[in-house]
């Protein structure tokens, strides 16, 4: 039947893609993570759990903890910026909301690395911010705004902010006005409206945003490289080094699997909160 041929033609590319470019790479990484590394950067196909055990080595635990902390602070800052923005815009017309959502997007049409480079110009010792502050006499010595954790956090927050703003905005704009009117009518104060209506209604959105902020924030090695000055390592740098510098692929694969497990766990929670997979990563 003609229909069967059409079905094959339509389905073949997508299934081939899913198997070859999604499933195969992940299965291969899983396989690598159980292999042994030889001292010349090659792999020995011999089953071992040692790569996973090495993650809990004291040096790596430190990087894991620090990286997670940076990720958490970044996520928290993104939430703190997104809520006021969304709440103020909630009261404006649909047109203003659409315009503002577009305005959030425009800076992100340039590459994230180029924007990070823009931050160097702003943050360095003789950069725009320090020069301006010294020029106005507020400070006398330039502030150390980059080549430290502060720089990484500024860069991460900036780069990942839209991933939080968009879901928080769309969740906030969707809240039924009657809910808030009803709460006001019953005498609720702004703070209690925020706590009892806004937060529960936007929770899946915030969780979606947190997922899309936290995971890159522990993986974007180029930001910590550029703004952290190479001294500060996050999990992303660790993986990158295993693959490109230290050439210990099995260990790099094991850390990657570790990240994957965390991701799937977070997604599981997100689904439990009532979130939809289709809304993830949607810009």
């Amino acid at each position, binding site marked *: 039947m003609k229909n069967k041929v059409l079905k094959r033609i339509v389905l073949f590319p997508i299934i081939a893609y899913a198997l070859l470019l999604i499933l195969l790479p992940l299965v291969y990484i899983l396989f690598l993570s159980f292999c042994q590394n030889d001292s010349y950067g090659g792999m020995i196909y011999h089953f071992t759990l040692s790569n996973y055990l090495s993650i809990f080595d004291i040096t790596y635990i430190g990087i894991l903890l620090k990286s997670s902390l940076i990720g958490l602070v970044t996520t928290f800052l993104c939430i703190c910026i997104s809520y006021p923005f969304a709440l103020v815009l909630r009261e404006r017309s649909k047109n203003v909301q659409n315009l503002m959502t577009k*305005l959030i997007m425009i800076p992100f049409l340039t590459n994230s690395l180029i924007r990070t*480079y*823009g931050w160097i110009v702003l943050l360095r010792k003789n950069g725009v911010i320090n020069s301006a502050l010294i020029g106005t006499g507020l400070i006398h010595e330039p502030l150390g705004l980059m080549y430290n954790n502060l720089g990484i956090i500024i860069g991460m927050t900036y780069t990942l902010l839209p991933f939080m703003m968009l879901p928080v905005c769309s969740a906030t704009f969707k809240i039924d006005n009657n809910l808030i009117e009803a709460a006001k009518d019953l005498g609720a104060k702004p703070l209690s409206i925020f706590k009892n209506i806004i937060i529960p209604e936007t929770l899946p959105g915030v969780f979606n945003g947190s997922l899309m902020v936290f995971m890159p924030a522990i993986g974007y090695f180029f930001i910590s490289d550029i703004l952290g000055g190479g001294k500060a390592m996050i999990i992303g740098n660790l993986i990158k080094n295993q693959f490109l510098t230290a050439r210990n692929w099995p260990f790099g694969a094991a850390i990657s699997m570790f990240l994957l497990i965390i991701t799937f766990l977070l997604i599981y929670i997100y689904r439990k909160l009532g979130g939809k997979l289709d809304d993830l990563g949607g810009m």
Partner: protein
Amino acid sequence: MKHKTLKNLIIALILIFLYLPIIILVLYSFNTSKMNVLFEGFTLDWYKNLFNNRTLLEAFTNTFIIAITSTITSTVLGTIGAIGLYKYNFKFKSFINLLLYIPIVIPEIVLGISLLSVYTLTKLELGMFTLILSHISFSIPFVIVSVRSTFSKSLDTYEEAAKDLGADDIKTFFKITLPQIMPGVISGATLAFTLSLDDVVISYFTAGPGSNTLPLQIYSMIKTGISPDVNALTTLMLLVTMIILFSLTFIQGRKIVGEKK
């Protein structure tokens, strides 16, 4: 949050934060000073310089070749795939559907290194081809999600109505289905294009010698020292991107205006 000015101030501050690094780069691309500190005077020298900087220009063209090729390919494949997964049932369909979410949700670095490993395993030489393949790979799921959001019960009925009036499968697709899902296809393409231009991490692992992209070039320059040409190039890149994306939105907008007029 009682005062209107305070509310406006919040919006303004956030927007300034978002635009600051870009405005600075655009501004300094016209600055006579090489140091990027004070604005000393207006010049177009950096733009002239740029046209002699072969490495940068090549990286710039590479970036757009990759973005355009991968956008077109992933939009076509993603659209066909989304339709196929919507219309047909087969064994393991839910498994394939789940797989398709993976590139959206997993950390880019994991996708990057896993693609790199497979290219090494299959002895694919790293270069433009692997870069384009990788960009197609992370874009397709976004196109699928975007196209899928335009499927609805009424689309099914439109297709049935077309069949009822004598249109075969191919005609129904081009006359009914495609115009109806066009908004999803265009926003999927926009997303694919933006993601490709924005990507650093996956390109970093899957690029090879002679296939430098602009971000990778700047990355290596940051370590050795950056010339203000980069500011000029960034400004150009922003311009080209905006033109492409606005024309995409324009096409989409005109279609909608046509229907609602």
